[in-house]
């Protein structure tokens, strides 16, 4: 049965145009040749319109040796915290634990939990408390960190954190529906993360 299935495979693959993986595509965007010809026939004296793809900076290709620095893009919905900043290491609060990202890290997508993100550059460390988000680490030592809310640790008020923790612990014990329990649990998680960020 398997052999017959294997025999069926090559036909559809040959018929469909071979699709390359996104990592194998050429780094620079080349204009479509058939479009250019058709355009030049109709309007030879005007430049063709630019497509959105040509405005995008192509991702730098994966170098053959590990680069010395990690390039980090750290963005929030309302601001770009770090934009192609070269750093030595970042430690991100992934759901699977604190993850250290060094240049040459394997390509990874990680979901973030509420926690501390620290950016290490030379001898200085900048810490942010991140509410949640994702980190995309690419094979060419570029890391994109996207968070909904990220604040430097000194902007957090310890009293409000303690109060919130007490409130939500109390809400959890008095919660009835699944949704209320989940919300109370989220509150506890976030506030305990804030607490350990302030004390740790």
């Amino acid at each position: 049965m398997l052999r017959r299935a294997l025999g069926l495979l090559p036909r559809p693959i040959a018929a469909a145009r071979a699709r390359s993986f996104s990592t194998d595509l050429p780094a620079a965007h080349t204009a479509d040749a058939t479009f250019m010809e058709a355009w030049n026939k109709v309007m030879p004296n005007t430049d063709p319109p630019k497509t959105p793809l040509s405005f995008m900076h192509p991702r730098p290709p994966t170098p053959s040796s590990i680069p010395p620095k990690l390039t980090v893009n750290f963005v929030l919905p309302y601001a770009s915290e770090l934009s192609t900043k070269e750093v030595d290491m970042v430690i991100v609060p992934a759901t699977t634990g604190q993850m250290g990202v060094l240049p040459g890290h394997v390509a990874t997508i990680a979901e973030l939990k509420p926690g501390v993100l620290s950016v290490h550059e030379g001898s200085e460390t900048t810490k942010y408390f991140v509410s949640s988000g994702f980190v995309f680490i690419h094979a060419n030592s570029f890391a994109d960190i996207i968070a909904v809310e990220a604040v430097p640790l000194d902007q957090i008020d310890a009293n409000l954190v303690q109060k919130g923790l007490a409130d939500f612990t109390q809400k959890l014990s008095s919660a009835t529906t699944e949704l209320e329990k989940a919300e109370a649990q989220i509150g506890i998680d976030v506030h305990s993360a804030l607490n350990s960020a302030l004390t740790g």
Partner: protein
Amino acid sequence: MASNAAVPFWRAAGMTYITYSNICANLVRNCLKEPYKTEALSREKVHFSISKWTDGKPEKPTLRSDSPEE
């Protein structure tokens, strides 16, 4: 391959990731020190008007300024 890996507790309770993420962000904003807290909360305010349509005609629009808490 297990396609039903252990789901996070909020997903099991029927909450989507966006709701979870927004709740976390609001909780963090509420724990900020004073000037930053008012900046953050005012940044997240939304102000919009909704009009329902019935029989192809819009009814009177209602203005809403939802504060970020809900």
